[in-house]
């Protein structure tokens, strides 16, 4: 599991300091702090950013919204973001609201409010509402990462790193090369949101990353994966053999 990379756009040093302090305390990784629109864009494109915290007012003008508008229109590059503001001015809000999905945080805020706002922004951005606050789930799936709520903060896992997933009731065991952990997510949601050309179901309890397969032993109903993990292949899902590219 990796920390979430956060880019901060905030012109007031005292506020950005407080922000960084809280974020770092909750295991967020600050990839950059920009004080203006231009710097923010540079930092945004040069770093792997998972979420952006944007102060609406930079040096007295609502440049923050302009930045959000900019990254919002770039295809495949837009990321979740949270607006920071000390004003509830309606006109500003109406404009900010147009940068959907819209999440904001009113200053002054405490630690909980900040973390909550970040989680909400991720949920909204990937259109999987009400994940982190409920009891049933704790994971949001994006194209590249799983965003998992762990304690008060968020973590991410690169989907490509997953070798296989084992389902146990409403829990899923995620096995990567380095670690093994449990997340709360339904199997149907995984099947729905994972790339089906890569992840195949081999058993009612197993989903396998085909790129991590080292050997299929149909006689034993076994699939051997990188790292020596062994997964059962049931009769029902034997079609996988045809789909996997094998050397002949």
């Amino acid at each position, binding site marked *: 599991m990796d920390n979430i990379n956060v880019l901060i756009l905030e012109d007031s040093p005292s506020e950005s300091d407080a922000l960084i302090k809280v974020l770092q305390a909750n295991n967020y990784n600050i990839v950059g702090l920009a004080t203006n629109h231009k710097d923010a864009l540079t930092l945004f494109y040069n770093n792997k950013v998972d979420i952006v915290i944007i102060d609406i007012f930079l040096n007295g003008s609502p440049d923050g919204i302009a930045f959000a508008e900019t990254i919002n229109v770039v295809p495949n590059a837009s990321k979740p973001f949270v607006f920071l503001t000390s004003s*509830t001015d*309606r006109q500003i809000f109406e404009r900010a609201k147009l940068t959907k999905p819209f999440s904001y945080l009113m200053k002054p805020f405490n630690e909980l409010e900040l973390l909550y706002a970040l989680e909400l922004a991720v949920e909204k951005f990937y259109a999987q509402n009400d994940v982190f*606050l*409920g*009891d049933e789930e704790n994971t949001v799936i994006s194209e590249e990462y799983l965003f998992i709520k762990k304690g008060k903060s968020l973590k991410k896992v690169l989907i490509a790193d997953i070798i296989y997933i084992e389902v146990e009731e409403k829990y899923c065991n995620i096995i990567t090369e380095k670690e093994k952990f449990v997340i709360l997510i339904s199997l149907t949601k995984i099947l729905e949101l994972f790339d089906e050309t890569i992840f195949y179901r081999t058993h009612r309890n197993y989903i396998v990353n085909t790129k991590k397969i080292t050997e299929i032993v149909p006689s034993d109903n076994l699939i051997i994966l990188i790292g020596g993990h062994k997964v059962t292949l049931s009769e029902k899902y034997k079609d996988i053999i045809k789909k996997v590219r094998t050397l002949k």
Partner: protein
Amino acid sequence: MKYSVKLLLLFGILTNSLFVFSQNIENTTIFEEEIKNRSRQFMDKPDFKKAQLFFLEKNWDSTLVYTMKQLSLPNQNQEIKNYCHLFRGFSLKEKKIFNQSRKELSKISKEFIFYYKARIKLGEITLEQKEFKQAIHYFKEIEELNDNQLLGIKKSFVKHNLGLCYLHLKEFDKAEFYLLESVKLQEKQKDTLDLIGSYGDIATLYYEQYKDNLAIPYFEKAYNLSKKINNHQLKQNTALNMAVVEENRKNFPKALVYRKEFEQWKDSLNDQNKVWEVAQLEKQFAVKEKQKEVSLLQAENKIKIAERNGLFYSAIVLLLLLGTAIYFYREKIKTNKIILAQKESLDELNATKDKLFSIVSHDLRSSVNAMKISNAKLLENLATKNLEELDALLHQNSSIANGTYNLLDNLLHWALLQTKQSYFEIVSMRLHFIVEQMAYNYQPLMLDKKIQFENTVSKKDIIFADQESLKIILRNFLDNAIKFSKENGNIKVYSESNDENYCNLIIEDSGIGMSETTRNNLLKETTLLSKKENEKTIGTGLGMQLCKSMIQKNNGKLDIKSELGKGTKIIVSLSKKEQNG
């Protein structure tokens, strides 16, 4: 004597011509009837028809024109020609163009039914032209005819005229014979008018021959007869004749009487004419007057109609004006009412604002004053390095700053709420986490007061509210709960979700509680701020007011349950369903 005879003769002729004229009138009707009946067969000829019509109407000029037109047409029927000549002869005679008339009349052929009529006319013309012999020739011709051929021509008339001719020719014997003949006939016919003429003429005849004894009785006869008739002219003539006769007899008194009578008749004739003229004039005048009256009435009518129309239109205009006036008046009243209502609400708001202003400034002043005193102490203790006291003072300062901040925050939000400037969007949210986030701020404070805090709001409770306003509500109620709690107290926040539409959020403390009056005052729907009861512990009331307004705006409800000394339960009911507006 000679002179008077001549005068008499002149009068005789005068009577004669009048006599001929009257004869004419009598005969014309018969003659006209005859003309009408006998010429009917030629009515298909337009010119002849017109000529005949004009002839009967005695329009001589037009008759002449149309007969000329008829005669100028080729292939004429002899009878039509005869008629035309007859019409022309008569017309010309009437116009006193005697020679032309004679020419026309002599063109009429013998077979024509009115041949003798034409002959007698010729006779009359020649008589008038004093060609007495020629006239006698014409009249003789007629005299010899039998009655059937006369066609209404009176024999007496012919004989009379013959007599006249002889009289003029001084052949007195023949004249006497014919005149007496005509008198005989006229006496038979009882033709008084003719008789008077004839008597006059006979008298003249005798008078000419100086046979006064014979003449006078005739004059007297004529005179007496004339008394019976109504013809003024005749009366005048006979009276004059008598006057001349009496004058010649030197009987002047009688002559004078007759002369006077003559004058009288003459005058009366004139008078009659005058009266007639006057009557005519009066008639004309009356007609004119009537016409005037009629036109006056017409004009009056017109004026009346115009007046009526004018009244009608002006009434309509007035009505319209009245309508618009009423409309505008009503509008004005309406506007005034609105303005008045607005003024009242503005006054109220202004009063609230003023009060708020005074309370807030008072609060701020005391807070800052407390801070000032605290800071002075802080400096003192810093100088004496009394570290324990420093810590306590700093904590105190911090709490003062916190309180002041909360007050200012509420003030700001209240102002924003009043002007409806702030962003407001109702969204779904999990109540538990909002409570958690808000309670987080108060953890140090509660820790300080050793207050046990518990958030048991279900994580499943989802409510619909505007996030920022809900946070303000929670902040205020938590702040109050802490403020009114004693040390080692409890604050519990929990939810009851039994109702279908509302989720009740309950903030319960074990603080000092409040009286029923305070409770009621707090719940009262008023924009006015509640009065301060206890200056030390109770704030401006602004927070409570703000919470009430915000709960209302979030479609929620507020209830308070409290017991003095035991604690207070604030119950905020929040909507579970999304509502429009």
